[in-house]
């Protein structure tokens, strides 16, 4: 493979690009959440893929994995059927289709049962009509998204990018294909290889197909040559996948660029039947080079027939499915347009099809590209014509009424001019008549389509000859100058007509583009600038309706991130109950679904997820008129519109969130001001009393001692009430920081003060107890309240034990006293506000434990009370999932900067 060397930048260092590393991390993250895919790949039926898959499934089931057989075809092979025994098999769902009952894989049942591993045979299978997805691989993708592991089987001829090679080898056209992207998602691709001789022997023994089918297969497909070639293909394909896997690993170690090379491929496609083959070839080349690739469609002035339009849509759809970036540009010269895109996008190679036959009067596209390409390489390949015809219903377009009118007009004009000039020709001479006809043709070309104009040109030439060039009433021309004149007239008329109508078509295309751009602008403006979002959305939807000549429905995301239950009131159609299934699917899977897609195509409308870079804002549905097609351009336009709507909705969502936050902040501020002033009013007198008492300390007056005790009590009550009110105002925001548990206990002890002096505190805490991340003051306050409670309710001199433990990130602190314990049955009630046990001494407010619980709950913990079996009450504070930090050896801690 030739690589371009001129684009490698010298001096690029080998340090991993952080963005690429991040992308890889995210990929790995996503891979962790979604299920794992394991593909058993074979060269053809009968090599033992299903057998290998079942063996592995049995082994996994033996290891205790929850395995479910989703669907497995045994093809009547007894060895395979034996393996199926003792594995749970999912019943197939029955689908009524006309007079048949079809059996199909039941994806919903699997999603309901949620096994760890599900077996889905024949990845390339096409589902029966009425299934959710058109193809089985889409079922598999959905299972993977749901986090279920999947084992599946696949033959190499069903891989999209290999299809035309297989056709070249075997002469058999393959219709059931899977996109290469699903193979890229596989965690493991296991090649089931068998020698050709062995396979043929198995076939002869009837182990592959039974009876007559075996003979037919042997005669057609299972030829030595075919099988050898297919085997090579399968081996090579697997080798290339292994190679890429290896490359991934290398890249993970040392990321220099997201792509292995600086190559970038470009392939130009048109409505020709060769386009698909070109796309596949480029995909294979891009995969080998591990580089990005572009598919470019140059829209010229020529109007496409419906058939061409559909072929083009199919080719571009294929390109997207295979992972290309699809670009569409307008330009009269295909080669120039392609080269322009190639230069803008730093393309290293342009891929183009070999011309079918050489034309001496006109250079082929390949020639023109080579001439203008400069340092870009041009790769000319010989594509295969697609055997697949557009499979949707053919719509034979009737000759439109407007065309009939145009032909009538043309006839009438020619007739009128002929009559008028007939009368005038004796005066003016017949040469002027030719000019009048030319003028008429040019004018007509500005209005009419190409067909009528060409007819008009021919008709004019003949009329002029017949009626005006002497001898009259005959096509005979005698003078040489008349001959020359006639031929020149004919050529001028034809080219004028042709040129003018081409200009017109181009103008129409331009106008259409302009209209789309304009619509986009209007949608963005009306939705983004509207004062009321609702009105803006309504206006935007009406604009889209007008552009597409269709009706639209919008389902937006609710504030709680779920989908709204009904369509937005600006919608111009209401989705049917059946349609809601499609809407939900689109929303959950963030993929386009419904009509014109492979997912739930029976739906009346096509649904697009409103997806921004970060969030999914809803779903947009477009219902086209019954017979309409959705071409590539329109689809792109809708996607762009959907993105715009999504951005507008997202912006609105952010604005709402900011407003809400402002309201909350306002009310918090108000509450804080109130609390501040109340606490000021209560605490200031207390401070004055206390300071005055201290000033009189020397007096040792027993009355003053009483005042002192009462003041302290009053102070505690005020503190409790203020704390309670802060707790209930919900403005309590824990401020988590690293704490030393011992510090917290010390702080709590100090807060309780003298009342704890009569109760020795025994702390048992490991010497190297790690730091924990909690709100220091809330925790200390809660602990102080519990300690205070213990001090009040236990006899003087009895000790209090405080013990901390940490297990599995669950921090527990137990506070045990040696008093009478809690009255039985009141263990839960002690945390209630104003609850006071019977016969308790005065001095408590009944709020302390309620506050303790509130403070612990505010930081995500819980608190419980019980009687210790050894006597006394025990309170346990538990914080689950708390962050811890075990001090490392001092050597590994960061060094201080030199003082």
């Amino acid at each position: 493979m030739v690589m371009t060397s001129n684009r490698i930048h010298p001096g690029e260092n080998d340090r991993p690009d952080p963005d690429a590393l991040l992308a890889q991390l995210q990929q790995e993250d996503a891979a962790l959440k979604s299920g794992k895919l394991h593909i058993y790949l074979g060269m053809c039926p009968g090599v033992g893929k299903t057998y290998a898959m079942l063996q592995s499934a049995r082994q996994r089931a033996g290891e205790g994995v929850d395995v479910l057989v989703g669907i497995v075809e045994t093809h009547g092979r007894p060895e395979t059927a034996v393996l199926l025994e003792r594995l749970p098999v999912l019943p197939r769902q029955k689908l009524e289709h006309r007079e048949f009952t079809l059996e199909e894989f039941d994806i919903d049942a699997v999603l309901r049962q949620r096994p760890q591993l599900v077996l889905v045979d024949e990845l390339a299978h096409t589902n029966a009509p009425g299934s959710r997805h058109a193809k089985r691989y889409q079922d598999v993708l959905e299972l993977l998204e749901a986090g279920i592991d999947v084992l599946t089987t696949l033959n190499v001829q069903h891989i999209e990018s290999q299809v035309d090679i297989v056709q070249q080898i075997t002469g058999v056209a393959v219709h059931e294909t899977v996109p290469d992207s699903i193979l890229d998602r596989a965690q493991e691709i296991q090649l089931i290889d068998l020698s050709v001789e062995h396979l043929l022997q198995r076939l002869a023994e009837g182990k592959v197909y039974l009876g007559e089918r075996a003979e037919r297969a042997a005669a057609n497909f299972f030829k030595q040559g075919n099988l050898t070639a297919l085997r090579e293909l399968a081996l090579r394909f697997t080798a290339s996948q292994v190679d890429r896997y290896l490359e991934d690993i290398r890249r993970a170690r040392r990321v220099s660029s997201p792509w292995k090379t600086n190559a970038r491929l470009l392939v130009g496609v048109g409505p020709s039947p060769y386009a698909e083959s070109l796309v596949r070839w480029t995909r294979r080349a891009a995969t080998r080079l591990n580089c990005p690739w572009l598919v470019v469609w140059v829209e010229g002035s020529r109007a496409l027939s419906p058939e061409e339009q559909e072929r083009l849509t199919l080719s571009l759809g294929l390109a997207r499915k295979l992972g290309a970036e699809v670009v569409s540009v307008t330009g009269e010269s295909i080669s120039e347009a392609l080269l322009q895109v190639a230069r803008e996008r730093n393309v290293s190679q342009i891929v183009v099809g070999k011309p079918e036959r050489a034309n001496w009067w006109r250079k082929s596209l390949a020639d023109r590209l080579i001439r203008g390409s400069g340092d870009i390489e041009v790769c000319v390949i010989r594509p295969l014509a697609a055997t697949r015809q557009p499979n949707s219903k053919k719509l034979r377009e009737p000759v439109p009424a407007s065309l009939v009118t145009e032909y009538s007009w043309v006839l009438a004009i020619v007739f009128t001019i002929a009559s008028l000039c007939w009368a005038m020709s004796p005066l003016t001479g017949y040469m002027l008549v030719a000019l009048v006809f030319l003028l008429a043709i040019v004018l007509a070309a500005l209005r009419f389509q190409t067909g009528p104009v060409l007819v008009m040109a021919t008709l004019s030439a003949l009329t002029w000859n017949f009626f005006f060039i002497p001898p009259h009433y005959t096509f005979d021309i005698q003078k040489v100058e008349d001959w020359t004149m006639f031929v020149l007239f004919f050529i001028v008329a034809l080219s004028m007509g042709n040129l003018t109508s081409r200009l017109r078509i181009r103008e129409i295309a331009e106008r259409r583009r302009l209209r789309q751009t304009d619509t986009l602008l209007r949608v963005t403006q009306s939705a983004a600038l509207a004062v009321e979002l609702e009105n803006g959305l309504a206006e935007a939807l009406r604009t889209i309706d007008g552009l597409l000549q269709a009706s639209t429905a919008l389902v937006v995301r609710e504030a709680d991130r779920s989908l709204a239950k009904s369509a937005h009131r600006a919608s111009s159609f209401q989705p049917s109950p059946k349609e809601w299934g499609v809407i939900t699917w689109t929303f959950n899977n963030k993929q386009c679904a419904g009509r014109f897609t492979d997912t739930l195509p029976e739906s009346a409308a096509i649904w697009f997820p409103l997806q921004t870079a970060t969030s999914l804002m809803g779903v947009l549905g477009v219902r086209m008129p019954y017979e309409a097609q959705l071409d590539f351009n329109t689809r792109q336009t809708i996607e762009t519109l959907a993105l715009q709507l999504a951005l507008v909705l997202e912006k609105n969502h952010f604005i709402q969130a900011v407003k809400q936050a402002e309201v909350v902040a306002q009310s918090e501020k108000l509450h804080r001001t109130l609390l501040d002033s109340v606490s000021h009013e209560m605490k200031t007198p207390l401070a004055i009393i206390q300071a005055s008492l201290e000033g009189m300390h020397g007096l040792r007056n027993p009355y003053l001692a009483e005042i002192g005790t009462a003041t302290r009590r009053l102070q505690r009550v005020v503190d409790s009430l203020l704390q309670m009110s802060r707790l209930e105002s919900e403005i309590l925001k824990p401020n988590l920081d690293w704490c030393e548990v011992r510090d917290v206990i010390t702080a709590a002890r100090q807060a309780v003060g003298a009342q704890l002096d009569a109760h020795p505190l025994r702390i048992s805490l490991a010497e190297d107890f790690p730091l924990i991340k909690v709100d220091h003051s809330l925790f200390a306050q809660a602990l102080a309240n519990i300690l205070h409670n213990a001090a009040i309710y236990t006899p003087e001199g009895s000790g209090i034990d405080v013990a901390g433990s940490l297990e599995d990130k669950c921090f527990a602190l137990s506070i045990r006293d040696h008093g009478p314990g809690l009255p039985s049955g009141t263990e839960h009630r002690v945390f209630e506000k104003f609850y006071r046990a019977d016969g308790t001494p005065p001095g408590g407010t009944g709020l302390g434990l309620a506050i303790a619980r509130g403070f612990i709950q505010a930081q995500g913990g819980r608190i419980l009370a019980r009687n210790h079996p050894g006597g006394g009450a025990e309170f346990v504070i538990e914080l689950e999932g708390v962050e811890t930090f075990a001090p490392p050896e001092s050597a590994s801690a960061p060094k201080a900067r030199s003082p």
Partner: protein
Amino acid sequence: MIALIIDDEIQIRRLLRLALESRGYTVHEGTTGQLGLQAAVFSKPDVLLLDLGLPDMDGVDVLKRLREWSQVPVLVLSVRDQETAKLAAFDAGADDYVTKPFSTAELMARLTAIQRRHGAGDVANLQAGGVSLDPAHHEATLDGQPLKLTPTEYALLAQLVRHAGRIVTLKQLLRTVWGPQAEQQSHYLRVYVNHLRKKLEGSNLDIRNEPGIGYRLQTRDS
């Protein structure tokens, strides 16, 4: 020595005046933030007691305005016992913070501590309790015996000793010992404080934790 009290409560002012005058202070008063700031200009106080809940402006703003031109030691005296309020005051340049209701004895001890630092200057104060620092050699002695410290521990202890008796905020410690990029790394600080506490065991020095605010080096008898 001159003390300035900025508080709108006349009773508090009177009580503080009594306590301060009995310890030899000359006392000036300011009843609002504006008047307080003016008094700070004219009376040139050696220490300032500031209430946060003033009628005309918030005490934190008074402190910020004052810090634009003056480094006078300021002790904040407030009913606000929230961590956030304390941190805001320290960030604005308070030297210490006492919540109301307060103990007069403790208030006076804190006042003395913040003034001592101010009077002695930043570098000279290299002795607290039994610990002396030798900045030239980065060595410390405890009760005359050499104290084995790692460079980080020395830097941390030096910070605490220089501000002995006063709160040093977490941010301040992290910034001066580890550098500005370490302001969020409080867990390392806590680990080192633990190491220091172990090495100071048996002495009359105690590194006290002020929940959510910082640390204070204190001699046990005070």
